[in-house]
Each structure stands twice: as structure tokens, then as C-alpha cells.
């Protein structure tokens, strides 16, 4: 039986679309080329839920961002058991001559529907953000911005979509798309050929290639690299909000980012790249990030850094590309989803569903849509009394695997049961190995739990999918 919709890409965009379509009586398949969802562009996301500022009021992404922010705050965070923290953001200036620029950002934000913004002076900053350097003169406070774990957001959406009947296939790279004359597509992926009436392209960095395969080579994706540096959780309270400088033409600048897991982050850089696979960090990137962050907060030191990574933003022009391609009837592109893609995703999903409906896909609500997803238990998120209750219910919550981030054996097992098949998948779900020792103490224990749960030999376990095997040989 053909699928009604195949979605290519299980990043935040594809995951949100899958979850949105799972409300309806449809046969939906979600294809992901990597070993797990969120392993492409989304895994390197900063985790900022933007308010909508710093986008022109005429832009698509501006209003999708404001609407996506609202959907997460008012519905999804509670429904999906997500740890969303509405900490707010500050856009700081170093020269009072730049005040008109803050006023302009405020006026544009207001036009988009961003609420509660206010200009704050140095006295306010001294009282509320005491670690800001003396160079900072004033700021725009944007209260509706917040933070979330980007991968746990993706996993929650995918889990809930699957619960509602969406089929997920990982390690399934789309290598061929053929249009069927009387409508629809044959999609070749992971050694299978699937038939579908509609194709939704949320393939991130590779969205241009997928659109081309489907018969609509209408845009090009350029990767724009961003390097990010994570600080020790001990510096959690260095900032109470996300701190931005004034934006430049290509980026929102080097930021000081609170994260929902506690470790502050500094970055990202923004440099156009050629290679869609180049996730390397550089000496120059580190210096740029440190300089940018220390301009706002001079007490940040290189020795605070415990981890770093680079991500690639899928850029195509200035705005998102969300449209039905008339050259390839049945193809809906959700492409060029760079910042603020994480925030916009739920709104993009609603827009894509609407485009599908307009082009002939009936959207008939299911009798029973499971809106809620139980919140996974994470010791690092709960007070000690809650930990006591968890351990009383299940002793394995008292069996600590990761000492830096306080992760129990039960959480690792839960992560595998919820779909983690790689060491990174366990890390993203649980935070085990994400702390200051970088897995030095817990890696062997995690691998043993994975062996038990998955039934693989240790030599088959990988960091992030085939090719990234961790152990070459096992001595009996």
C-alpha cells in the first residue's frame, strides 16, 4: 500500500512535521539517513527558543518563529514533557550611539507580535546580570525567549509521532526519487523502494539534492559553519539570560547561551563552508568565540571550556523555503531552515500540513490522537526528594553510571528502550558522557548496558552509526 506522505529527514523540521501529520488519518513514513533522529543539523543546535526578534517583519521566518515560540510555550512543552525554560534574552550594546538600533529591533519585533520587550540601562544590568563587563552600556530585554535541549525536543516529537502511527526508518539515505506519471513518487532509500503520494523534503543540508532528485532543482543549500564551546556546569549561573550582541549581516553574533542542561555555551561562529560534512573546529574559531564572549563577559576563561563542536546551518538565501514545487507536483519543500529553525519547527509543520491539504491531501483527524508523551525521568533535572521517590519505585535509579552529570543505569536503559542505538544517542538523551570527564569513567559501563539491551557484541557498538565503531577487537 502506498504511503500518503514520506518525510525525508528526522531533524527538528521533519520530526515536527511527522508529529503534526500524525494527528490525521494518514500513512506517514519518516526517513533518516543517519543512525538516529537529530544526528544531522539539529544535534549542533544551540537550543535557543528565539522570541522572533532580529528578523524583518516581512520575512516568513519572522512570523513562523513567533508562532513556533508560542506553540512550544503554550502547548508542546507540557504535552511532550519537555524541559523548556523561558529565561529571556538580552541584546547588548557597547556604545550608547547604538541605542537606535535596539529601538529598531524592538519596533520590528513588535510588528511581528513579540511581547514584553523593554530597553534596560546599566543599573538594571548591574542588578540582574552582574557578570556583564563594563563595556556593556545598555540592552534590549526580550522575555519570551527561552532554552531547550534541541535533541530531546526532536526525540520527543519523533517518539510521539511514532506512538501515533508514523513509521520511522533510520540509516535510510534517500538515493533516488522518481515521479510517477499519474501522481506521486517512488523513493529509494536504505535498500527499499517506497511509493508515496506526497513527498516532504526536510533534508537539511541535503534538501537541495533531494529537491533536485524529485524534479525541482530550484535552490542551492550552502553550509554555514558555527563552532560552539561548552563551559563547565560550575559556571551555570554566569548569565541568567541568553546574551546577544547586536546582530551582523550574516549572524546573530557570538552569544553567551544558557542551556537547559546547565552548562553555559559560547558561540557560534558563522562562516560559509564548501563541505557539507566538515564538522571540524579550529584554533581560529576558538579564539573568535572567546574574544566575542569575553567582550560581553570578561570573566569567561579558556579553562572553563569542557567541550566543543561545530555545526552547519543549511542556508539558502535570506529566508526559509517552504513551498509546494509546481515543477514536481506533490513535493513540498521545507528547506533552508537555518536559525530560527528550532523555534519555528512547530509552525513550519502546521504550514506544511496546510500546503499538503491545499494540494489535495485530505486531513481527516484521527478519533484518538495521543497528544501527551510521558516525561522521561532525569535525576539531574529533579530535586533529591523526587530522586528518593524514583529509587524507591525502581532501585536502578540509585545506580549511578555518570558521576559528572548524575545519570543512573535506569536512565541509560530507558534511553536505549526509547530508541538510542549509539553512544551519542545515549549521551543526547541522558547527558551521560556530556560532563567534565567526557566519558572517562562511564563509557565502559554504558557500553555494557547497551550490549545487554541491544544484544550486540561490543565491537558492533558505534559512536554515531556505521563506520564509527568504538572497539576494534574483543579478547575472550
Amino acid at each position, binding site marked *: 500500500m502506498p504511503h500518503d506522505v514520506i518525510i525525508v529527514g528526522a531533524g527538528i523540521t521533519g520530526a515536527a512535521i511527522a508529529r503534526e501529520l500524525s494527528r490525521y488519518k494518514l500513512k506517514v513514513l519518516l526517513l533518516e539517513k543517519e543512525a538516529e533522529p537529530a544526528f544531522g543539523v539539529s544535534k549542533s543546535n544551540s537550543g535557543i527558543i528565539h522570541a522572533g526578534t532580529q528578523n524583518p517583519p516581512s520575512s516568513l521566518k519572522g512570523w513562523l518563529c513567533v508562532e513556533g515560540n508560542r506553540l512550544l510555550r503554550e502547548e508542546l512543552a507540557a504535552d511532550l514533557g519537555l524541559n523548556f525554560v523561558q529565561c529571556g534574552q538580552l541584546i547588548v550594546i557597547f556604545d550608547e550611539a547604538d541605542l537606535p538600533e535596539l529601538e529598531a529591533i524592538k519596533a520590528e519585533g513588535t510588528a511581528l507580535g513579540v511581547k514584553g520587550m523593554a530597553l534596560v540601562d546599566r543599573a538594571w544590568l548591574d542588578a540582574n546580570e552582574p557578570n556583564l563587563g563594563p563595556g556593556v552600556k545598555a540592552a534590549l530585554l526580550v522575555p519570551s525567549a527561552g532554552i531547550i535541549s534541541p535533541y530531546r525536543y526532536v526525540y520527543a516529537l519523533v517518539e510521539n509521532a511514532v506512538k501515533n502511527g508514523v513509521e520511522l526508518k533510520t540509516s535510510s539515505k534517500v538515493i533516488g526519487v522518481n515521479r510517477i506519471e499519474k501522481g506521486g513518487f517512488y523513493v529509494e532509500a536504505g535498500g527499499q523502494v517506497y511509493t508515496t503520494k506526497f513527498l516532504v523534503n526536510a533534508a537539511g543540508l541535503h534538501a537541495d539534492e533531494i529537491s533536485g532528485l524529485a524534479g525541482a532543482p530550484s535552490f542551492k543549500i550552502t553550509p554555514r559553519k558555527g563552532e560552539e564551546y561548552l563551559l563547565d556546569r560550575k559556571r551555570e549561573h554566569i548569565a541568567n539570560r541568553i546574551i546577544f550582541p547586536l546582530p551582523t549581516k550574516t549572524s546573530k553574533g557570538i552569544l553567551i547561551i544558557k542551556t537547559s542542561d546547565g552548562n553555559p555555551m559560547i558561540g557560534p561562529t558563522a562562516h560559509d563552508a564548501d563541505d557539507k560534512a566538515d564538522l*571540524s573546529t579550529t584554533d581560529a574559531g576558538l579564539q573568535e568565540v572567546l574574544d566575542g564572549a569575553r567582550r560581553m563577559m570578561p570573566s569567561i576563561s*579558556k579553562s572553563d571550556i569542557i567541550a566543543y563542536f561545530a555545526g552547519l546551518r543549511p542556508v539558502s538565501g535570506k529566508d526559509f523555503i517552504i513551498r509546494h514545487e509546481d515543477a514536481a507536483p506533490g513535493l513540498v519543500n521545507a528547506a533552508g531552515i537555518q536559525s530560527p529553525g528550532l523555534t519555528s519547527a512547530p509552525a513550519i509543520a502546521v504550514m506544511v500540513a496546510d500546503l499538503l491539504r491545499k494540494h489535495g491531501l485530505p486531513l481527516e483527524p484521527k478519533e484518538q490522537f495521543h497528544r501527551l508523551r510521558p516525561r522521561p525521568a532525569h535525576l539531574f533535572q529533579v530535586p533529591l526528594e523526587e530522586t528518593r521517590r524514583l529509587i524507591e519505585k525502581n*532501585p536502578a535509579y540509585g545506580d549511578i553510571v555518570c558521576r559528572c552529570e548524575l545519570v*543512573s543505569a535506569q536512565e541509560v536503559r530507558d534511553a536505549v528502550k526509547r530508541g538510542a542505538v549509539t553512544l551519542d544517542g545515549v549521551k543526547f538523551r541522558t547527558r551521560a558522557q556530556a560532563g567534565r570527564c567526557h566519558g572517562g569513567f562511564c563509557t*565502559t559501563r554504558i557500553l555494557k548496558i547497551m550490549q545487554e539491551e541491544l544484544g550486540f557484541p561490543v565491537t558492533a557498538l558505534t559512536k554515531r552509526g556505521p563506520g564509527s565503531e568504538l572497539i*576494534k577487537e*574483543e579478547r575472550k
Partner: protein
Amino acid sequence: MKERELVIVGGGPAGMAAALAARAAGVEDVLLLERDQHLGGILNQCIHPGFGLHHFKEELTGPEYADRFVRLVKEDPAIEVSLRSFVVKLTGDRQLSFLRPGALEEVKARAVILATGCRERTREMIAIPGSRPAGVYPAGLAQKMVNMEGWIPGKEAVIVGSGDIGLIMARRMALEGVSVKAVVEIQKTSRGLVRNVVQCLEDYGIPLYFQHRISRIHGRDRVEKVDVVRVDDEFRDIPGSGFEISCDTVLVSVGLIPENELLEMAGAEMDKKTNTPASAEVNQTSLPGIFACGNAFKVYDLADSVTRDSELAGRAAAKYLGRL
């Protein structure tokens, strides 16, 4: 909340020596908390010889050295050992919360000795640029994989840093048939013991590059090669001196950091640079009744020295408790 006379956090060589010394000095009730499923700490993975030359006047392996203390601890009914017990909270007035399978326990201690050891500095702390593939491990983790689990992480290895763990792992990997292509050290000399440089590298023909650094790690999924460059006395790259080494594994051995997050949580004054208690005197902290010993107090070269100084911690706690 249950009250205990002395609670020791960490059941490695430091914690065990402190427990036994405290008992010998008259302490009547010791609770020894160990996060792992057995006592001995890192000694369990140090299967090479070289331990005990000072303390026992004979050469032992790590597990043999540990076992001498484990037996004494187990024989003493006044030392309660709680395994798989992980301390999550310590206050300045010596209240401890710890998790173990099945329970969250809270105790009030009249004295506390922290013997929590070290963690390894990681690739991230020395900021080696490049990609982040599988195959980059802290050397101590690789040691645990090979010696405790029988897992051989790779076939061709480069080792960053010539500290003792790096040197010992170079030999250990070579003995397992791994081609160890180089040890790369940014300093002019090794931080490890001379005997280890000779016995672990020279005897196995493993090249040691002083004043070199890894400037980049390559490989998308698994390590494929590293770039190496020579540096001058100010650690600046010397142009034109770079070369590549192909390998599938990089072991990072660039030093140890005392694990003192509990002490910091309790509010003790810390030396930020070394992550140790700010203290003029061995094993002391700024908090009354809370002591630190072994590698948590300072990074030692020899387990024998850890034993010697940790016994002093046991006696110091006994004195604080009015037993001496």
C-alpha cells in the same frame, strides 16, 4: 538522620589507608563509601608492576597492592563498606547524601575524609582542533577497556602526552599487538617517571616526539589520521615542520585533575588552578572536620606516597575526633 563518627568518600588506596589509620588511632565507627562495585579504585586497572616498592619493600601489581588493603578493611568489623554508593551532596557541617541501588541515604558525620581521586584531563581541555570521530579516548579509559573488559580500542594508535598513564598505555597497547606509532609531547621533557620512558617506549621502539603537538584530528566517523607540528619554546607552531601520522586511535594522556566537586559544594576554599583545597598543610581543608587525601589533595606520582600521606589523614581525623 543517622550519625557516624567518620565517613570516608572513596575506596581506592587513599580511602582505604585513611580508614585503617583512623581505626589504628582509635576511631570506632567508619563508613567507607565507594562508587564502584569493588574497593581498590584505579589500582584495579593498573595491572602493571611497580607498586609497593616503598610501602611493602617488594614489587607488586596494582590489584595486588590494592588487595593487601582490601583484606585488612574487610577484616575490620568497625569499617562498614558501602559499595556502588555515590555521594551527591556534602554540606559544610558534614551532612552527606548518597545514592546506592535501591536507596537515597543521608548521614551526619562527625568527620569526613574525601579520597575521591582524580579525573583525566581530556582532549577538550587542551582543545585539539579537527573532527570528533570515534577512537579518541582518555588514556585511563583505554586502560580500563583493555585491562578490565578485554576490549582493544584500535589497531594503530598515537598517544598525546608522555605522562605515566600515556607511557604505560603505549606499552600495553603494543603488547596487545596494536601498532603504537608515536607519543607526542608538547614539553621538552616527559612528565612521566624515567623508568617508564625507558621500559615502555625505548624497549618497544616507540618514537617519542618532544616539543610537538597534534594540530588536527581527521576522520568523520572514526579517526583516520592526525597532523603533528613542532612547536618552539613558547608553544608556537614552527612553520613547515608539520607531518601526518595515519592512525585509527588517539589516546590522550595530558594530566589529571583532582575530583573535588564535593569539597567545593561544601564551601571549602579552593585553589582554582589545581582544583585542590587551598591549604598550607597536607590533607587539610578550610572546613573543620573535613579532610582530603590522596590524589584529591594533590596529584601523586606513586601509589605508595598516596598510602603514606593518607595514613596521616586518618590520624588527623582521629585527632579531630578526640581519639588521639
